[in-house]
């Protein structure tokens, strides 16, 4: 076990453990992410883009998990999730959300949220540090790919006959 994972795992704070248990609950976590998107971004177009990106990176993350097939550090324990470990999809979603808010005044909040989620995955013993660290470049890659796809789709819609857009026209 690496040093960062060992330190995170050794912290036995009831508040952190409770937060970790809540984040581990997929339904609660999905609702929290939705709330953070809708509270942090007032524009519907950008909200849609963030949600589409989150869905895309989640699919990518699950596909990588299946391909890499690495067992969790807690494998064998009754409370341990049944799926694979690498990468942490919780951290992946949190880092993607963080990147989506780059350039905004609330960025520091989303950065701290992503770090808290990452820490909670280590603290609850369901991931190692490498799983969490891998989520960061995948989030950058996923957001970059989604941005390219989003811009291409937007240009395609503007160029479609009868779409009311103009080639190279400004965004609405």
């Amino acid at each position, binding site marked *: 076990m690496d040093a*960062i994972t060992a330190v995170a795992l050794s912290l036995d704070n009831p508040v952190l453990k409770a937060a970790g248990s809540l984040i581990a609950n997929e339904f609660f976590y999905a609702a929290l992410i939705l709330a953070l998107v809708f509270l942090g971004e007032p524009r519907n177009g950008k909200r849609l883009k963030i949600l589409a990106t989150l869905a895309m990176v989640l699919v990518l993350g699950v596909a990588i998990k299946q391909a890499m097939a690495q067992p969790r550090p807690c494998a064998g324990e009754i409370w341990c999730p049944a799926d694979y470990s690498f990468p942490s999809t919780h951290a992946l979603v949190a880092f993607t959300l963080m990147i989506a808010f*780059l350039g905004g005044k609330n960025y*520091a909040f989303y950065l701290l949220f992503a770090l808290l989620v990452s820490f909670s995955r280590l603290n609850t013993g369901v991931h190692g540090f490498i799983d969490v*660290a*891998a989520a*960061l*470049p995948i989030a950058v890659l996923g957001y970059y790919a989604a941005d390219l796809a989003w811009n291409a789709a937007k240009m395609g819609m503007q160029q479609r006959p009868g779409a009311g857009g103009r080639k190279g026209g400004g965004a609405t």
Partner: protein
Amino acid sequence: MSIKPSLKMERETARQVFHAALGVAALALLLLFGREFTTGLLFFIIIGGTFLMNKRLLGEKVPVVQWLEWQFERPDAPLPGWGSACYAAGVLLLLTFLTDANEIAASLVVLGLGDAISTIVGARGRIVLPYNRKKTVEGAAAFFLASLGAWYFVGPAAIPLAAVATVAESLPWLEDNLAIPVACVVFFLVL
């Protein structure tokens, strides 16, 4: 105000020397302190870097970052610090996906050395690639040859690795600093 071509070339060369130096630094950290330490350090550097990047996007002055931007970032970068952020993310991708230190080191040679030399040579090249008007055959050849330095770490596997990475680097629309690490990871994990 436009930048003089000679000055633009000088900045691009400086940018690529810095690029190669970062690759050497990452390689040295990996060989001296191991994968886990290097991964941890880079992870927190990226987190801190995005925080500074956000400050710049909000219009705040961060002198060190502005100096780095002026010296080493392309004038047409979509965000301040974009190239450096992608490079760091690419290296982190290699460190987390690959477990063998020799494979990581070989990929760092390709990313650090190959990309830097190909940009310097490619900028002076004359034969444009048919599928990417921004890149030249000379640049692609220089990338392939420089990437063969990976032989030191992985032996003959450096030849197909260099070939796969050369194709990834030459593709249009893709950010080199992300495309090359993805190609290296796919090469070592799948092929």
